[in-house]
């Protein structure tokens, strides 16, 4: 197990290097931060621009800039934002928790809804309940997340005035963004739970559990669900990446002060240090979550643990 984790760690470091290298390089192809900063500032000469580039350090060769960034990664000094010169580390420290909390609640909402619904659909396969659940999951898959977000705002904030429409202001403000993300995830998760559950319910040990006299609840939630865990956890791990991507959009809609907003603004301003750092942190999160998934496998499945 220890060897396995070390191997995965090395893979993770390698993956992070590749991601940051690609991102750092690609963003430099998209525009000049000096031009962005001076937009609408009137008479700017080429010499002014060169001075700005010099000050930002973007006139140096790409690899020099990249290695500086890598050095920053190791020493936890990500440099300063091109906009206002705030420390990038501080910006991320402020934004990361809001995003992670949102991601956590979204996942939780999705799991809480999709597991019972998926199991219900599997148990009543091809019956009315199953059809209804499947139609709703299809609907959930088909509409865009920002549309759902806007509708929620319209109903709960504007019409009924129950929830704050935007910003991170108190615990009530978590509800709409998490529910929006949660429902989008639920649409796919319900189908996944249903399919894996159907397969598991055919297993002989489920019949054995029933023949023991166990209640249907115990059969489903103890004997069957635990066996569905491996494919579910794998998928949830992969889904985490998509979740972070989705959060960028949702954070914009709800004006949520998280990594998504940070990254969005940084792209607009070609704020290289901020963008590099946000993307690196997000990809690190995804890699860590999938590493955690590999470890959790062993916990839920003795066949893997005792290998």
């Amino acid at each position, binding site marked *: 197990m220890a060897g396995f984790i070390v191997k995965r760690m090395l893979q993770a470091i390698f993956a992070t290097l590749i991601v940051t290298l690609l991102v750092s390089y690609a963003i430099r192809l998209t525009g000049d931060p000096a031009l962005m900063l001076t937009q609408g500032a009137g008479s700017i000469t080429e010499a002014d621009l060169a001075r700005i580039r010099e000050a930002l350090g973007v006139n140096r060769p790409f690899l020099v800039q990249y290695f500086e960034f890598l050095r920053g990664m190791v020493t936890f000094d990500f440099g300063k934002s091109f906009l206002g010169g705030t420390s990038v580390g501080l910006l991320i420290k402020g934004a990361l928790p809001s995003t992670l909390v949102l991601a956590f609640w979204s996942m939780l909402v999705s799991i809480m809804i999709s597991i019972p619904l998926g199991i219900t659909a599997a148990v009543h396969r091809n019956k009315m309940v199953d059809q209804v659940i499947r139609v709703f999951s299809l609907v959930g898959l088909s509409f865009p997340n920002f549309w759902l977000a806007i509708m929620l705002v319209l109903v709960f904030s504007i019409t009924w005035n129950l929830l704050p429409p935007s910003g991170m202001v108190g615990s009530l403000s978590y509800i709409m963004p998490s529910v929006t993300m949660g429902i989008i995830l639920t649409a796919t998760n319900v189908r996944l739970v249903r399919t894996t559950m159907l397969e598991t319910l055919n297993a002989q040990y489920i019949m054995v559990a*029933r023949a023991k*006299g*166990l209640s249907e609840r115990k059969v489903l939630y103890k004997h069957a669900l635990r066996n569905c865990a491996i494919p579910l956890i794998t998928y949830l791990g992969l889904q985490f990446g998509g979740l972070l991507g989705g959060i960028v959009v949702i954070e914009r809609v709800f004006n949520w002060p998280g990594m998504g907003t940070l990254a969005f603004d940084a792209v607009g301003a070609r704020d290289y240090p901020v963008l590099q750092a946000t993307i690196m942190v997000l990809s690190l999160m995804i890699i860590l979550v999938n590493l955690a998934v590999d470890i959790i496998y062993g916990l839920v499945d003795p066949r893997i643990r005792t290998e």
Partner: protein
Amino acid sequence: MKESSSDASSLIRVENLTVAFGAEKVVEDLSFSVRSGQTLAIVGESGSGKSVTSLSILRLADISGAHYLGGRILFESTKGEQDLLALSQQEMRAIRGKEIAMIFQEPMTSLNPVFTIGDQIAEVLQLHEGMARKEALAEGVKLLKMVRLADAESIIGRYPHQLSGGMRQRVMIAMALACRPKLLIADEPTTALDVTIQAQILAILRDLKDSLDMGIIFITHDMGVVAEMADDVVVMRKGHKVEEQPVEAIFTNPQHLYTQTLLSAVPKLGAMNGEDFPKRLPVSVYDEAGAHTEGELRVQNTANYEAAPLVRVEDLVVRFNVKKNFLGRPTHRVHAVEEISLDIYPGETLALVGESGSGKSTIGRTIQQLQESQAGNITFNGKRFADMGRGEKRALRQKIQYIFQDPYASLDPRKTVGFSIAEPIRTHGILHDQELIEKRVSELLDRVGLSASHGRRYPHEFSGGQRQRICIARALASDPELIIADEALSALDVSVQAQIINLFMDLQEERGLSYLFISHDMAVVEQISHRVAVLYLGQIVEFGSRRQVFENPTHSYTQNLLAAVPIADPHQRIMMAINEADIPSPIRAVGNEPARLSHREVAPGHLVANQ
């Protein structure tokens, strides 16, 4: 039909039970009864309704959508006599596992892989006996000892995948008996197990039935097991009871024509004593019109030992890495095949027999080039595999065909069977003209006893026996010289099995085919093969003509193997001490090589490993 004896001492009385799925009645007007201490065997082939009957008693058939159209199931529970069909699922839960317990066919999949053995046994005791977990685990250890599992204290903490099939089935029995049920339903409990393990499990069940004074309903298709276990026998066919008699009478004086044909189709070990060659036997077939006999008796003297061997296997070694260390180096290997040498002659059926882990399938797979070998030579028609180019090896795939155990899994469900049969003709470029290919497919279907119009249908439209015929037609399509039949008869009902055996023999007679016949069923092997190799942990322990091996088994392992086969005769029950240890495993640590067996020739062509 005679009414079942419904005396007051019955533990369970099934009266006129009719069960349907949708519009289809799968059990109709079925009656029988079981007393405490009695074993009732319900015998039947696939589709007889025997498993539905057992699931109906537990009311587990409800979950798959069964409707009870009529009848009663009266059970003498601790609350007095109850009609199980009238109880709610909730009331049934108090009976399931507590008063009526069940053992299922597949020990490999009957236990939940994510819970320990101890937790799975304790669960029943906690549920029905109100025990605390610790107390229940302690009781679990006692139960495991009761089913003769050595090392019960350690097994209680292990997971199912760490146990062999035989051990898992013992665990299942322990679990079923945890609350000392009055009635045990055993649905084909030994079908998936090796014969020596089967003999152990049957002995344990018989032993416990007496000490716990249970009634047992034993569901099986195997007449040998019936003779071994039953006091009384119910024979079912297509949802109906066709006959009910005490076990002696069923075998000595079967009344119904169906029972008679069923018994005549069962290959009996020892039936071929005194014969030099395998024999094609007439088959009794039972259908709506009655019983009739098909085919003639013929001595199968097809093997040509004058010719050069078709296949020569020399010192073959096949190993698989199973465990790796931190650096990815193998630490444990399966020694599947260890220096095996054998020849297959034209027109000969060579049988490989042995239990799981003996390496018999691996030899077949290596000859068919589905598996790489680590050492040794295989020669086909005088040419070594090692000297062949890629093209020659491909051409060889045409000459060697494989037939698998599960005919359903080996046919593509989305292609017509005609397409599947034509595929080897196309891939090997034997025929190119579409019309000629179709003609050839029709001939092949006709040859295996199906009609040309069947070619347009899909695999799910056929029965198991028909599917195996299709697989044989496909194997014949490329005009092979050797067919490797790997447990090709094991999934079939005995009556169908007898017909397929004859088909194999007819094809051998016509085409001079050689068969490598891989099987664990000693009685079938005795009927079909010219020579037999008995394998144990990847090595040959005995090799000789059919007559030498079956009439004069010399190695102790061969003797044990033959002794463990249940005979379809209640007077010849197996008397075997219950073995507490498990059979040794072919998995070994790297560097720990197995000792090579040396052989002596006890008669011309009869080789026996020295012990």
